[in-house]
């Protein structure tokens, strides 16, 4: 079988070393695109986790409806951190609309120390966590997704006494508030599981 071809969208901010390398180590063939029209015929899409909301949406905006339709049609995808947040309708962080795949908005974390930075637990029974022996993952963010449909949330995290949604799935699109590509062995397991999932769903 041909290796899964993963298309990473490069919004033009931040480095994509870790996510690219992680996916390659999981056996995927990775291409990084700056022309977002390329996402429309991608076999599997990854929205990486670097940048701010509006800047991240800038290049995606002209293809917003087309990309959402592909995701709704079941193309496997993964959004990490800000790449997850742009799956929502919009965000308190900016004024641009998001892709609108997940109903609801991205809201500010209610806590004293912001950003929420470091390793925290994610409670989830999703198959993407199969084989994960340590459920600590690396986070760095000040906002989180708040879906209107509670079934979109498949994992949560507690910070400063408040539980927030940190792991999502809608259709075949997964979203993680944490950074699997920065989460050592546990992150690698989640990415391997995602690649297996995407291979089965393509």
């Amino acid at each position, binding site marked *: 079988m041909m290796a899964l071809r993963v298309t990473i969208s490069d919004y033009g*901010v931040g480095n994509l*070393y*870790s996510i690219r390398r992680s996916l390659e180590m999981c056996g995927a063939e990775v291409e990084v695109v700056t022309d977002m029209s390329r996402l429309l015929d991608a076999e599997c899409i990854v929205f990486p986790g670097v940048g701010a909301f509006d800047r991240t949406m800038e290049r995606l905006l002209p293809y917003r409806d087309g990309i959402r339709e592909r995701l709704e049609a079941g193309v496997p995808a993964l959004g990490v951190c800000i790449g997850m947040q742009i799956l929502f309708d919009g965000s308190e962080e900016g004024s641009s609309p998001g892709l609108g795949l997940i109903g609801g908005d991205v809201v500010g974390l209610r806590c*004293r120390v912001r950003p929420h930075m470091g*390793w925290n637990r994610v409670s989830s029974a999703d198959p993407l966590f199969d084989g994960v022996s340590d459920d600590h993952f690396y986070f760095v963010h000040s906002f989180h997704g708040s879906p209107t449909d509670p079934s979109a949330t498949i994992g949560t995290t507690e*910070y400063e006494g408040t539980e927030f949604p940190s792991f999502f799935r809608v259709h075949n699109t997964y979203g993680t508030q944490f950074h699997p590509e*920065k989460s050592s062995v546990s*992150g690698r397991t989640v990415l391997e599981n995602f690649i297996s999932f995407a291979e089965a769903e393509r």
Partner: protein
Amino acid sequence: MLTKRIIPCLDVKDGKVVKGINFVGLRDVGNPPDLAMEYERQGADEITFLDISASLEARQTMLNAVSETASKLFVPLTVGGGIRTAQDMRDALNAGADKVSINSAAVTNPDMITECADSFGKQCVVVAIDGKRKGDKWEVVTHGGTRFTGLDVVEWAQRVQDLGAGEILFTSMDADGVKTGYDIEITGAVADAVDIPVIASGGCGSMEHIYEVFAQTDVSAALAASIFHYNECTVGGVKQYLRDRGINVR
């Protein structure tokens, strides 16, 4: 619950790790990527490279080391030392750093903090503050602790937060290198004064010191160098010690 972070720091000069690090089984003990990966394997939560090179050519060598490390390391990497401009920061991020720390340049040009936060996002802007006791207060110092700036440590910490810093790396220059423990009083005061994460640095000589700073202050992370480099303890060993004493670690 968010865990406390343990961050080994590697001094890198001309692309090589300095200080006699002695790990069994590593062919090149001075190779930054190999050491960083070893620390990840031991359970380090992040890695910090401090560039202590002097020349411009050496900076490129450092960036090459950062790139090589970034393609092999799967925990966050912070790069600091000699970052003078937003362009320096951009170069380090493009090379693969997740966060970049600025020290003296933040004092001489505080607007640079805002410029970097706006361009790259707050989360990758770490402001390193070196503090030294002067009479009954603590003053910000630069140039390895040799120059007093007249800035009060706590006020400066609040100011860099307002300017857009995403995190503070606080080093007590009185404690640094002495190995008698972190300076609990001033480190705690900095952590209480700001609402961004604070990393304690300077003075760590044993596992007990890391326990003390987590038990007695609200810092988010502890940075240490020599206790890990000289094989006095592994990161995993430190974490087990902390866990046994009720500190929440990964």
